[in-house]
């Protein structure tokens, strides 16, 4: 069976005992088919014949996607099956957008929806959909937009509204949709970047309004502090969603994902932990304090925290840079080193935030202040 199909089979029916051997197989495939990754592995002295475990596979920095084409250029694929996604960010004032070519979009779809089903729709519900981020037809280069479109297709029922495009978010339309859902007593799923959500909350407050959305309503936010002048804390999102939209805190679920990865992680809450086959509740107890929430990835994603200096895995409970091995990235590079700090505990992840800033220090300009001046 071709490696792509092997991965797809695993996503549909994960067998944890097979993960590492499949990961090593995927690594061999990527070594053979992604030229610059092969070059990088050779610099690091990692040939497939010498790599015996997951931890020995060289992880590629997400920064690499800003500069290099990291995709399978050997395996024949139909253009219609492939998509190219771009990151939205800029780095140090340069307009450097990351580019991730996904040769088999069906694998991305299977990965995204498979884990979403467990984490955001474990009850099997279908409902009205409100997106505060553009959908794929409006922003085809956005992997988040693609995911939102799939969510609407797969889990939507009744009305669905997207109130965002490249220019911005129409908060007034979003509020009208929420009012209509409330009037009809129909649950709604709200999908938004954290920045768009902050704008929505501000407007609800400004109107001295408060929603009481129907039971079963839920919210997925993503992006964290990115793009926000005054960032919302994770706990604040949960508090505001409860106070302003009337949502049960367990139904407010933050997504952690990135363009460079076809799999995502979601907050473990009493809602999805109760219903998910994947979550061993004795190990991954959903935290009551939203600030301490932990995230769970799918069975086809290995997550580790590594020491940024040695790149070795740190012990559970210690902070490090988050490193993933995502089987769903089979068509590009699966071993990804992020710029995010986090703590792994019993297979769950507590994301601590971006690690780009150095510490500010007296008598020397801190990176943070410097960056602030530059922006």
């Amino acid at each position: 069976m071709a490696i792509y199909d092997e991965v797809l089979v695993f996503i549909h029916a994960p067998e944890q005992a097979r993960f590492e051997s499949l990961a090593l197989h995927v690594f061999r495939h990527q070594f053979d088919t992604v030229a610059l990754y092969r070059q990088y592995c050779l610099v690091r002295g990692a040939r497939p014949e010498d790599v015996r475990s997951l931890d020995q596979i060289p992880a590629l920095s997400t920064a690499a996607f800003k500069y290099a084409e990291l995709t399978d250029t050997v395996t024949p694929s139909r253009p219609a099956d492939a998509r190219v996604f771009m990151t939205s960010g800029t780095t140090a004032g340069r307009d450097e957008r990351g580019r991730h070519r996904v040769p088999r979009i069906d694998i991305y779809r299977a990965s995204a929806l498979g884990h979403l089903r467990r984490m955001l729709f474990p009850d099997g519900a279908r409902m009205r959909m409100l997106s505060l981020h553009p959908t794929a037809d409006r922003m085809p280069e956005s992997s988040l937009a693609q995911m939102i479109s799939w969510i609407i297709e797969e889990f939507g029922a009744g009305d669905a509204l997207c109130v965002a495009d490249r220019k911005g978010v129409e908060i007034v339309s979003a509020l009208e949709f929420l009012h209509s859902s409330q009037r009809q007593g129909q649950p709604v799923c709200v999908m938004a970047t954290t920045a768009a959500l902050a704008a929505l909350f501000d407007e609800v407050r400004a109107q001295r309004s408060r929603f009481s959305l129907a039971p079963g309503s839920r919210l997925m936010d993503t992006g964290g502090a990115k793009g926000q002048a005054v960032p919302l804390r994770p706990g604040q999102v949960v508090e505001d969603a409860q106070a302003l939209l009337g949502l049960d805190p367990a139904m407010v679920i933050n997504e952690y994902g990135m363009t460079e990865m076809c799999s995502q992680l979601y907050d473990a809450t009493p809602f999805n932990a109760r219903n998910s086959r994947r979550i061993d509740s004795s190990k991954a107890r959903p935290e009551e304090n939203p600030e301490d929430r932990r995230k769970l990835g799918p069975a086809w994603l290995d997550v580790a925290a590594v020491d940024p200096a040695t790149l070795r895995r740190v012990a559970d409970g210690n902070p490090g840079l988050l490193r993933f091995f995502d089987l769903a990235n089979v068509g590009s590079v699966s071993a990804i080193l992020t710029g995010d700090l986090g703590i792994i505990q019993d297979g769950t992840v507590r994301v601590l935030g971006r690690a780009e800033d150095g510490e500010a220090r007296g008598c020397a300009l801190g990176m943070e202040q410097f960056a602030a001046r530059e922006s």
Partner: protein
Amino acid sequence: MNRATRPGTAVGGSPAGEQCAADSPAPVSTTAAIARVATRMWSADRCSSDRVAAALGHTAARWRKREFAPRRETVAGLASALGMTPALLDESLDALLEPITAASLKLLAAKVPVADRLFGFLMPGNVPGAGIHEVCAALLAGAGLIIKSASIEPLFFANFTRTLAEVDAAVAARVAVVNFGRSDDAAMRELWAACDGGVVAYGDDASIAALSAAAARRARPLAGFGSRLSGALVLPGASPSAAETAADGLARDVTLFEQRGCLSPHHVFVVGDAGEARGFAARLARALERLARRLPTPARLPLAAAAAIRGLRERARWRALAQPPGGGRDHDIALWEGGRIIHSHGETPGEWMTWSVIYDGTATFCASPGYRTVFVSALQRADELGERLGAAVGRLEAFALSAPPDARVRLDAGLRLLGVSYVCEPGRMQSPPLDWPHGGGAMLELLRGAAR
């Protein structure tokens, strides 16, 4: 436990004074300790500037000897507290103390006004001994000093002052070293109240801004030394040996104090074409490697710094790896990394970071996360430097200048016009002269204000 590390009490100063507070079996509140220090200092006789210069000169001379027991103990304590290696700390303290001689102290004494007031010092924790220039100036001016050492680095000034007390108890009676957290509001209030001459503070810009507001509320002057950046300008000499000397010197400047202070260079601009600048970056990398063998890096880097260095390295690596044939302006980049990939049988491969040189041909001034991470760029002409400073404009402290003698005077003057307070040869950045106008001469201004 070293006495000087006990928090919350007055811990240094003359044997007859604050050591009693530290040794007292009964707990002494920080506020009471500061009040007592202030009272004692007001009653202490003022010494002549010659006597102060001689005492400080003798003290520094003792401390320049690596085998001097208080220095050895301090280095050991600092290594443990700051994570820097003893060899690195020794070399760094040598550089710091080098300019503090009896002769230079006498010369400085002639420049400072008499300021018979009490000054508070809020010391930084990132660079041990930073602030000693201002301490010397204040003592020479006849001032009394309450030095609040940083929580993370409570050793240097406490132990240095003890040696001063052994050399000349009367001079040391004008200094007390205390240690309390900046969040100790009562202690800070007492410090502000006691220090009629003003407060000298070192910290990040946000801390200095907060202290400025506090100073204004209390109508007390403040000399604030906030965040500053340093760099280097290199005109390759006629001979390879001149470039080698410059690279060796800059490697030392980058390495000392683990690049944690305002005098540590972040970015080196090389006047010449891309080939010359790249060549210099390679020389600098080799020099950093040689130095790293003699002055080892910390056993463990702070997480945030290590993560920042990792991010910079990976961006540079991939910009370099993804260079199209023929390169191009935006792809004129190269990375040299200190450290090695560790292969140990049966274990996951790992690596270690010792130093990083990022050559980015056309970059504007970049701030480094420290720990021996330096940027190198090319300048077609030296007078383009101002345009390439970017966000560092108005925040410069020191620049190393490597240039032929005929160009040196002009370039030195140009750098000072850009706001650089200290221009020196490569290798001398951590040894500014005693009369260095740190932060634009804020200390001298404070003393002048107090003298009126």
